[in-house]
Structure formats: structure tokens, C-alpha cells
């Protein structure tokens, strides 16, 4: 009975891992070398960055909102770390990282506070923040900056530990923390409660606005962290480096089976979603398609995924009621 319940409860998430596994197997049969150890390592490191960027997006979507401001918080964080790496080294740079993550959190909180206390729709607020940051980052850096990727970030993104990439290990640690936060803490339960039914959550004594605002804060912080990771991977920061992550973070969440209407889903699903995207991106690049065709195919695949996830979720919901 318990086992059955477990399967039923987690069927959506588990099916996502099956999809990744099947997709991966199919492609590795068609394309030898895809399943080689070194390529898997690259894939997982890439998935890690998408997955980290999607941490906050998962929380925000569970509340029933959306965060469109990830790209430029991401980009701003990478640019800041890149610029400060000249003057701060060693332990001092640790402080810079803490500072950047704090700023990311605060920027996210601004989103959250405006969404919850002023009642601005999350999509408009975060789109606005994204544009403001785009202008601000472009203006402050005047296009290009000189710097270097600090060693600690290089190790984080490209290093390996007993043959496993550090980025992937780091992601696993973060995933465990997020899962514990969602499942075992009052905050996590409050998040699901308000995503399911705001009014009921409010009358159950949950401080709805605070819980929701913090979700946006976490999203800002995770976006900044992902930006630092990509800086470590590419070795330099440039304008527009965060742009793909607006679509990818939402897609990872959707592919992971989290309902866009909020109240359900798990970060475990998002992890599978991020892996799916990494595999897809790698395939589309390997097929030697033009940028445009990649974008079209990628968009269509994700469109289908979102649609299927929504239909599945609405079926689950109606069977629950």
C-alpha cells in the first residue's frame, strides 16, 4: 500500500527521469561518443548551471508566479564578479561572492515585495526589473569590462573530483538543501499551501506575503549563483550571457512537471528538466543546425512539453478532487 502510494505520488517526477534516460539512450545509440564519460561530464556540468538558475524559478512557480528577471540578475552577477576579480583575490573574493549573492537576493526581494504588497502581476514586475537591470548593467559596464575569471569559480565549474565534475556535485548538494527546504520545513509547506489556495493559506495563519516575497528573493540569489558558475565555465563575462536562461529556467521547471498554475511539483522534477534541456541542447548543436532552426525546434519541443505537463497536471488534479 505504501509502495503504491509512493508511486502514485511521485509518478510525474519519476516519469521525467524515464524521459531523460530514454532520450539519452536513443541518442547515444544514434550518435556514438555521446555516451562517453567525458561528454556525460560536460552535459552534467551544463545541466548544473541550468538547474541552479531554475531553483528560484521552481519556488516562484510553485507560488503561482513567474520570474522573468533571471537573465539580467544572472548577467549582472557575472559582470560584477568579473570586474571585482582584479582588485580582490583569495579570501577577499569570498566576501565579493557573498556580497553578490546578497545583492541578488535583495533584487529578488524587490520583485517579491512589489508583487505581493503592491499587487503588480509577477510577469510585469519581473519583466520590468529585467529591463531596468539590462539598462543599468549595460550603462555601468559601458559595454565591456576587463577582468579575469577567479580561480575558485573556475574550479567550481570545470574542476573534477574523483572523475565527477565539481559543478554537478555542488548542484546535488544544493538540490538536497532545496528538497529539504520544500519538504521538511514550515516554509516549504507554506509555499505549497499558498500556491494551492491563497485564501485558505491566509486564514490558516500563514504570512502569505512574506512567504511569497522570499521565494522571489531566493530566485534572485540562485540566478546570481548560476551567473557566477557560468563565468567560471566560460572564463569571461559579456553582455547578454544570461539571456538564454530566461527561457531555459522556465522550461526546466515545466519539463520537470511543475504545474504553471502553482501549488504542486518538486525540485526533483526540475533537476530532471534541466538534464533534459542539457541533452536537447547538445543534440541540437551536434546536428549542425543553424541558430535559427535550433531555436525553432527547441521552442516547439518545449511548447509540447509544457502542454503535456499542463494536461497531465490538470488530469491529476481533477482525479484528486
Amino acid at each position: 500500500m505504501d509502495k503504491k502510494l509512493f508511486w502514485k505520488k511521485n509518478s510525474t517526477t519519476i516519469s521525467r527521469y524515464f524521459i531523460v534516460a530514454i532520450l539519452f539512450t536513443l541518442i547515444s545509440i544514434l550518435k556514438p561518443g555521446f555516451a562517453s564519460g567525458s561528454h556525460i561530464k560536460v552535459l552534467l556540468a551544463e545541466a548544473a548551471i541550468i538547474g541552479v538558475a531554475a531553483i528560484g524559478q521552481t519556488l516562484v512557480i510553485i507560488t503561482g508566479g513567474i520570474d522573468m528577471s533571471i537573465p539580467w540578475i544572472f548577467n549582472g552577477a557575472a559582470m560584477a564578479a568579473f570586474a571585482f576579480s582584479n582588485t580582490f583575490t583569495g579570501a577577499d573574493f569570498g566576501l565579493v561572492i557573498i556580497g553578490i549573492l546578497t545583492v541578488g537576493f535583495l533584487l529578488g526581494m524587490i520583485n517579491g515585495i512589489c508583487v505581493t504588497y503592491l499587487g503588480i502581476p509577477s510577469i510585469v514586475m519581473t519583466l520590468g526589473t529585467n529591463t531596468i537591470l539590462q539598462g543599468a548593467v549595460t550603462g555601468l559596464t559601458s559595454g565591456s569590462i576587463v577582468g579575469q575569471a577567479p580561480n575558485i569559480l573556475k574550479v567550481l565549474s570545470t574542476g573534477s573530483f574523483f572523475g565527477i565534475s565539481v559543478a554537478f556535485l555542488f548542484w546535488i548538494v544544493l538540490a538536497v538543501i532545496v528538497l529539504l527546504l520544500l519538504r521538511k520545513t514550515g516554509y516549504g509547506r507554506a509555499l505549497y499551501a499558498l500556491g494551492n489556495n491563497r485564501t485558505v493559506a491566509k486564514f490558516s495563519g500563514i504570512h502569505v506575503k512574506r512567504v511569497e516575497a522570499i521565494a522571489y528573493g531566493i530566485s534572485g540569489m540562485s540566478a546570481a549563483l548560476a551567473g557566477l558558475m557560468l563565468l567560471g565555465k566560460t572564463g569571461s563575462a559579456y553582455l547578454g550571457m544570461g539571456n538564454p536562461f530566461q527561457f531555459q529556467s522556465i522550461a526546466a521547471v515545466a519539463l520537470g512537471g511543475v504545474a504553471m498554475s502553482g501549488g504542486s511539483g518538486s525540485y526533483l522534477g526540475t533537476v530532471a528538466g534541466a538534464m533534459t534541456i542539457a541533452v536537447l541542447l547538445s543534440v541540437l548543436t551536434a546536428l549542425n543546425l543553424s541558430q535559427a532552426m535550433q531555436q525553432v525546434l527547441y521552442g516547439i519541443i518545449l511548447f509540447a512539453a509544457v502542454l503535456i505537463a499542463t494536461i497531465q497536471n490538470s488530469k491529476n488534479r481533477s482525479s484528486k478532487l
Partner: protein
Amino acid sequence: MQKRNYDRRIKITPDGKRTVVSFVLLVFFLIIMYLVQPSLMKPSRLITITNGQLCLLLGGIGQTLVLLAGGIDLSIGGVICLSNSIAALYMPDSIPGMILMSLLIAALGVGIGMFNGVIITRFHVQPFVVTFTVNYVLLGIALKLLPIDGGEPPARYVSGLLHNFGIFSLSMILVILILAGWVFMRRTRFVRNIYAVGCNAKASALNGIDVSKVKIMTFALSGGLAALAGLWRTAQLASGSPDAGDALTMPSITISVIGGTSMAGGMGGVVGTVVGAYILRLIQDLLTFLGAKSFWSTVFQGVFLVMTVGVCSVIDMKKGGKKNG
């Protein structure tokens, strides 16, 4: 609470009070403009501004209709880019050809909008998810057709659309026709249904309104208007760009909201949106005149969007309480 709003909105002209605010803002910025730079206040300037803003204005009207019915359309930029790219590449150099091509492109826009609407209503997916993803695909297709900025629409097409009749330009006549059309349309059952659905979809359905159909129609109109916006852009710039139009989605929301259209649906109207398009341009001109660098204009776009939506939302909350407690 819901019911009271519903009654009020239907009785008083839908875009009455809220539009007045946008006119006040327009006059305010006109006065500032006059004080700062009187030389810019002349009729020929109105032609330039209208030519420049008609593209955004058409997209904004589509956005307004979708917002009125309680949705949001993030694919406006994508449709504009696609329409712009196709027109810049394939517009033939004969008058019947031009008309046929324009009709085809407009039909394509309507088709994309209908697709959005059908998916949203049939599968109950959030509008922003569907339109955001569709936008991504459309930008990809535009990029496939036109890899770099370019294309050359026929000179007759460009000069025809940018033609001036004395102190009136074709664009100004179009704006006047749009306003007149809206004043006429507002009394029709179709537009009343849009407001009703945006106020309270459940009550509308119980009153026998086909909610899905109304929503699909608003998305279809939005797609069609965005395609027209792309056609206009082709003439205005005399070239095509696969991605520049994408930046128009956000201002399309901004001008709707300055014009008094509520993000929650059911309140506002097209007249306000038209005024909003002119207000946005006036502010941009003021910024340029004050010597602001281009990135400031980007910052401003975001600040202005957040500010207008914030102010409207706070006022609405004070008036009628927030929808979701």
C-alpha cells in the same frame, strides 16, 4: 465585491474615468515639452511621431484587447518580427501584389493569434506560458528567413504608406479611423462580451457568453494587429529585422496600462492606449532632449512599466480590494 465591480463596469462607459487620467498625463507632458523645447511643437512633428509610433500603437491595441479579456499576449514582438521579415523579403512590386501579400501576412498573424487562443482556452494553459513559447518559435522562424537585418521592400510600398495629405499623414488618418472604429465598436455585443469576460469569466459563462470564443477572438485580433504593425514597420524602416521588433512587447503592455487598461481585465479601452503611445513617445523625446544615453532609455522603459502598473494596481486595491485576498 466582484459583483459590485461587475455592475459598475458595465453601467458606466467602460473606459470613461480611467481614460481621463491618460489625457491629463498627455497634456501635462505636452506642457513640459512646450516649456523645454517649443520648436518641437509643430504639426509636422505630429506626423513624424505618428509615423514612428503607429507600429507600437497597433501592437498595443491588440495587447489592450487581450488584457481586457483577462489574458496577456507576449507573442506580439514575435509576430511583428515575422511579419516584418516576410514583408521586407517578399513584398512584390505591384499594387494588387502588395495588397494580396499584406492580406496574407495579416491572415498569418490572425492564425498565430487563434492558435494561441485555442491552446490557452482548450487546454487551460496560462496565457503567458503559451504566448512566451510561441514568441520564441516565431523569433526563430524570422531569424531563419532573414538571418541579418536587411531586405528591401519596394519603394512604392514605402512611399505609399508614408504618404502625406497636406498636414495629415496616412498614419494620422489611420489613427483617427481606429479611434472612430473603437467608439462604434464599443457598443457592439462583441466588445461588451470582452469586458464581461475580463470582469468575471464565470458569471459571463453563466449568462450565456461563449467565454472561450471571446478569448480566442481577442488573441486572433491581437495577432492580426501585430502583423499589421509589422507591415507598417517594414514601410517605416524600409527594411526588415528578425529580432528588433521583439522589444515592442513590453511597451505594448506599458501603453495599455498608462491608457487605463487594468492588468486584471475588464477595465480600460483602446482610446487610452492610443493616448498612451503618444505619452511614451513624448517622454522618450524629453529624455533624448535632456541628453540621456541610450541605456538610460532602457532603464526608463522598465521603471515606467513597473511604476504605472504599480500605481494603477494600488489604486485598484484601495477601491475594490484585491482579487485574491
